[in-house]
C-alpha cells in the first residue's frame, strides 16, 4: 500500500476559481437529511489527493458553491467522498444529484488534522452531528496505520438515533482491538438502549491519559467549547486539543474575507486549529 504524505505542497493553481467537473458514482443516504456522494474523475485526469480534515468547494451548475469536508479514505485514490446535510438551497441541490450527474470541485483546501503530531499517542475523536464527516478520514488513516498510534477513542453524539451517521461502520470499528466507540443522542425514543445526553457525558467512560493523547473535535461551536472545558479539566494540554471551525466561505483560499475569525482566516489558517489558538476567541458573541 502506498503511503500518503502528511504534508502537502499547496502551490498556486492555474486558476483557483475554476471548478473541475467530477461525476457522482454513488449516492448513499446516511440519515433522513444527510447523504454521502462519491465523486470520480470525468476524464483521464485523476482527482487530487487530500489530507484528513481538508475541504473542497463543491459547485452545482448554475446554483452555487460551498465548502464541504472530504469524508472518505485518504488512501483510496481516485475517489472523493463528501457527506452533505441538506440545510439550504445549494446543499439541497447537492444531495439531489443522481449517479451520473456531475459536480464541480475546487481544492482541497485548508490545514489538516494533526495526524503527524498524534503519532505514538492515544487519539480521541469527538464529534457532534455532521461533525463526524470531516473526522472519518482520521479514523480511516489511523486504522490503516494502527501501529503508529495508541488507543483510538471515538465519542459521537447526534440529535436522535436516526441522525447518527455511519452506524454500520461505527459498529464494526467498535469491535476492533484498542478502539472504543461510544455514541449518545439527545432524544432516544423507546427503541434506543444507548446513552442519552450531550457528548461530554461520555467522558466518564473513557480512560484518558492526558499527557499522552491528542483530541480532535468537530461539531457545533458550543459543543466544542464544552468538550474543550471538560478535556482541559482532565488535564489535556490546550495544544493537544484540535477543533475544526466553520464560517461563511466564498473562496476557500484567503481572498474573499468572509471566513475571518479574530486574526484568522478559517479557510487558509484552518479549518483545523489548536484549542490554544482558538481559546481567546471562542464564545465571543458576534466575533
Amino acid at each position, binding site marked *: 500500500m502506498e503511503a500518503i504524505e502528511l504534508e502537502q505542497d*499547496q*502551490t*498556486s*493553481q*492555474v*486558476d*483557483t*476559481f*475554476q*471548478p473541475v*467537473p467530477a*461525476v457522482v458514482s454513488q449516492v448513499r443516504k446516511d440519515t433522513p437529511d444527510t447523504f454521502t456522494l462519491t465523486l470520480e474523475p*470525468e476524464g483521464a485526469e485523476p482527482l487530487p489527493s487530500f489530507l484528513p480534515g481538508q475541504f473542497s468547494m463543491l459547485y452545482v*451548475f*448554475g*446554483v*452555487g*458553491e460551498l465548502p464541504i469536508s472530504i469524508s472518505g479514505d485518504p488512501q483510496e485514490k481516485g475517489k472523493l467522498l463528501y457527506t452533505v446535510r441538506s*440545510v*439550504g438551497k445549494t446543499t439541497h441541490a447537492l444531495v439531489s444529484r443522481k449517479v*451520473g*450527474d*456531475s459536480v*464541480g470541485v475546487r481544492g482541497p483546501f485548508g490545514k489538516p488534522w494533526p495526524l503527524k503530531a498524534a503519532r505514538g499517542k492515544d487519539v480521541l475523536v469527538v464529534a457532534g452531528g455532521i461533525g463526524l464527516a470531516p473526522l472519518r478520514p482520521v479514523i480511516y488513516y489511523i486504522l490503516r496505520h494502527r501501529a503508529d498510534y495508541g488507543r483510538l477513542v471515538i465519542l459521537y453524539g447526534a440529535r436522535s438515533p436516526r441522525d447518527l451517521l455511519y452506524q454500520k461502520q461505527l459498529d464494526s470499528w467498535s469491535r476492533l482491538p484498542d478502539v472504543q466507540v461510544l455514541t449518545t443522542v439527545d432524544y432516544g425514543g423507546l427503541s434506543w438502549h444507548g446513552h442519552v445526553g450531550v457528548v461530554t457525558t461520555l467522558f466518564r467512560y473513557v480512560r484518558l491519559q492526558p499527557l499522552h493523547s491528542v483530541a480532535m473535535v468537530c461539531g457545533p461551536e458550543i459543543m466544542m467549547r464544552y468538550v474543550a472545558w471538560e478535556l482541559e479539566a482532565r488535564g489535556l494540554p490546550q495544544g493537544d486539543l484540535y477543533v475544526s471551525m*466553520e*464560517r*461563511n466561505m*466564498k*473562496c476557500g*483560499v*484567503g*481572498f*474573499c*474575507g*468572509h471566513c*475571518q475569525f*479574530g*486574526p484568522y*482566516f478559517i479557510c*487558509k489558517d484552518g479549518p483545523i486549529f489548536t484549542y490554544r489558538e482558538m481559546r*481567546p476567541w471562542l464564545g*465571543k*458573541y*458576534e*466575533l
Partner: protein
Amino acid sequence: MVTNLPAIGTQFLIDIPALDSIIGGLRRRGYEVLGPVVRGAAVVYDAIEGVNDLPAGAGDEQEAGAYRLTRREDGALFGFVLSPHSWKKFLHPPEARLFAARRDGRSFRLLNGGPAPPPRYAFLGVRACELAAIAIQDRVLLGESYSDATYRARRQGAFLVAVNCTWAAPTCFCTSMRTAPPAEAGFDLALTELVSSERHVFVIEAGSRAGAEVLAEVERHEASPGDRLEAERAIAAAKASIWRKVNTSGLRELLYEKFDDPRWDHVAQRCFTCGNCTQVCPTCFCTTVDDSSDVTGQQTERWRRSDSCFSQNFTFIHGGSVRMSAKSRYRQWLTHKLGAWVDQFGSPGCVGCGRCITWCPAGIDITQEAAALRADEEIAIGKGDAI
C-alpha cells in the same frame, strides 16, 4: 536604442509639455493611461490622453462626511488631494467574471480559459499612501500559496507614476501610518509638482528601468539643488499641515482587549452600515460571488463582486448571520483594519488616506474611534487626560 538611460533615483526637472510626452510615450508603448479627471463634482480616475485631460486648477476640501471640489488660481495639475476613487477599481475591479459554463449533458464545460487578458495600465498620479495601499493588496492577493489571477494579471503589467503630495487634506493621517510622501519605492516614475507665479514644472525621478526608459525620451535637465530643496520643502509643508493621527503603538492588542467596550455601542448608534467606507478604502478587498444563468438554464456565469463586512449576510451560515448588530460589524471593520491585519499580513490595513472619513455619510472618523477606545484605557489606568 538609447544606451544612456537616466540613472534611477537621480532627480530631473521637466516642464508640462515634457509631462505630455511622458503620457504619449506610455500610450505608444501600449499602456492605457489612467489619471485624475473632473467628472461631475469630484476628481476621479479615468482614461487620459494627455495633460489637457488633467484637472488643472482643481482643488478639494475634505472633512468628515464632506467633500467639495474647489478652484485654485495657480492652475496646479495635482492640486487636489485625493479622489474618492482609488486604483483598486482597476487592479481589483468591483466586478469580474470568474468563468462562464455551459451545460453538457449531465455535466458542464467551462467556456473560456479564465479571465480575458486585461489592458496594460499606466496610473498617473499615485500618491504615497496609494502606493502603500497597492503594496498591501499585493500582500493580500498575491499570497504565498495562492494568487488571485484577476489581480495578478492587472498588477503585473502596471506602470506606476507617483505624485508626491504638496498639499494635504484635513482628513489625511498618512504620517502616523508611515505611508507619507515622498514616495520611496514601488513606482516607475515619481513626480513632485512645483507651481508658483514664476514657473510650473515637475521634479521627476525614475524608480525602475521601465521608468528610466520612458524618461529618457523626454526633454529634461538635472534638477538643481534649489529645485530639489523646493520640492522637499513643499512635501514637508504638506506633511506638517497634517493633524489627524492614529497612535498605532500597541493598538492591535488594545483593540482585541476592547472587544466589549461600550464605545462600540456609541459608534453603532451613528453608523448606517452602508459600507461606503469599505467601498472607498484602497485596501479593503472582500468579495462575494453571484451565479446567474440564462433563461434556458443552459449557460451560466459566475461573477465576483466587491462585498463589505458591513452587509448583514456577509457572515451568513445556516440559521443566521454571525454579525447581526451594527456594533459587531463596525467592530469587525475597525479591528481588522488596525489590528487583525497586522497578524495576517504584517502591517495595518489602513494607510491613512482618510477616504472613509470623508465619504462616511455619518462623518464617523476612524482616527477618533481609535483614540476614543484608547482614551477609555488611559482613564481606566489613571494616566492621560480625561476627554
